[in-house]
């Protein structure tokens, strides 16, 4: 007679599920770089254009992206855990006949196997959902990074423009004191760059809107995992993963 053996030690995956480290907090570096680029010229935009470049173009994407990295790792751990559970139930669905009465009259084996098969399939589904969620969060972080890189370039061009405005304002005779058309070149350039930066931020904002909406629905379904996991591990291992939609909003810096 063969005993039920836990095929995979669940603790391996659940323990990292609780507090995985994230290293995706690129926003701090982005904010620091933009601060350096705009140092000494930011006042020009405030004074001449009544526009705060840091406030409008830098801070919106300076949320807690590191927390999102933590959520991604949590989802990957959850996927691993679900696959393990699925595998374990699959093993139980395939227990040899010798576990049950060997005269063929016992109906239990069929019902048991069917139930174990269903549970295994369910956890297979959860694993897919967790993997997809991890991919979504992962790609969202990458989109955030790409947007931050793009914005850095735009901010450097805005900084050049503001520098140039100070120089042109200091040129007598041929500067814009002599003609508004000259000033128009730099006004146009400044606002065109601001528009591009705003479009870039809007693109990531729309992406986040979509991702948060989907995650919200997916996580709601996965919520039942928390009960299941508590049963298996005695802890609320899914906590980090369940907080993902909020973490996405925080990543964009739109929540307090």
């Amino acid at each position: 007679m063969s005993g039920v053996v836990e095929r995979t030690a669940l603790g391996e995956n659940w323990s990292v599920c609780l507090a995985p480290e994230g290293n995706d907090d690129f926003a701090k570096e982005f904010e620091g770089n933009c601060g350096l680029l705009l140092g000494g010229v930011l006042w020009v935009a405030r004074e001449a254009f009544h526009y705060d470049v840091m406030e409008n173009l830098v801070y919106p994407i300076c949320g807690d992206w590191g927390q999102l990295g933590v959520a991604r790792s949590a989802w990957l751990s959850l996927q691993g855990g679900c696959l393990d559970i699925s595998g374990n139930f699959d093993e139980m669905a395939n227990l040899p006949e010798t576990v049950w009465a060997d005269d063929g009259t016992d109906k239990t084996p069929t019902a048991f196997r069917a139930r174990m098969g269903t549970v295994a399939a369910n956890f297979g589904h959860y694993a897919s959902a967790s993997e997809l969620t991890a991919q979504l969060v992962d790609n969202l972080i990458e989109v955030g990074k790409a947007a931050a890189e793009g914005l850095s370039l735009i901010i450097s061009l805005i900084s050049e423009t503001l520098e140039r405005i100070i120089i042109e304002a200091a040129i007598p005779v041929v500067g814009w004191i002599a003609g508004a058309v000259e000033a128009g070149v730099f006004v146009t350039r400044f606002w065109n760059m601001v528009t591009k930066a705003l479009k870039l931020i809007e693109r990531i904002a729309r992406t986040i809107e979509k991702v948060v909406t989907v995650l919200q629905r997916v996580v709601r379904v996965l919520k039942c995992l928390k009960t299941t996991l508590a049963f298996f591990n005695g802890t609320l291992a899914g906590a980090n993963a369940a907080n993902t939609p909020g973490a996405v909003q925080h990543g964009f810096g739109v929540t307090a």
Partner: protein
Amino acid sequence: MSHEDELLAEARAALAELHEAFAEIDELMTEVVRSGGQDLAQDAERDEERARLARRGDLGPQWRRLQERIDAGDTSLSSIARGHDMSSEAVDLRAQAHVGLAELTRLVRDADGDDGSAELPVIHIKGAPTAPGRGLPPQARAAMAEAKAAQASLEAVMQRVRQIPVADLD
């Protein structure tokens, strides 16, 4: 299709949208690099002309002295503009820049709310021939209006993102 399968399909669609976002960001940045390159080329020409006038003394003694120091590699336009150059001529030019900026501020204020589609404002002085006003050119006013529209559009999306209810799943 089960509810779970539908959700997985939605998640896959969201993933596809993320890939589209990458493509759109790439496209936007290609345009930024192109127009930024054109601006830098124009600035190089402008600098050449300004340096020529400065060396001849046409822009005044301060610019002449600063240009000598720029030519000697002792300072740069960036150092002058950002306030790193504390020489008396650089300090004087920055003071001059404040005067010029006050004029720019006025031009920008006058153009606020104007999308650039109208004719330039015209100044009517009794007894004098009608002359065009010294307003910003239409493309500058159009750029201001476009940025304002982009800001409003972004704020609408941000507002929607903030309002997505994130249920307490604990």
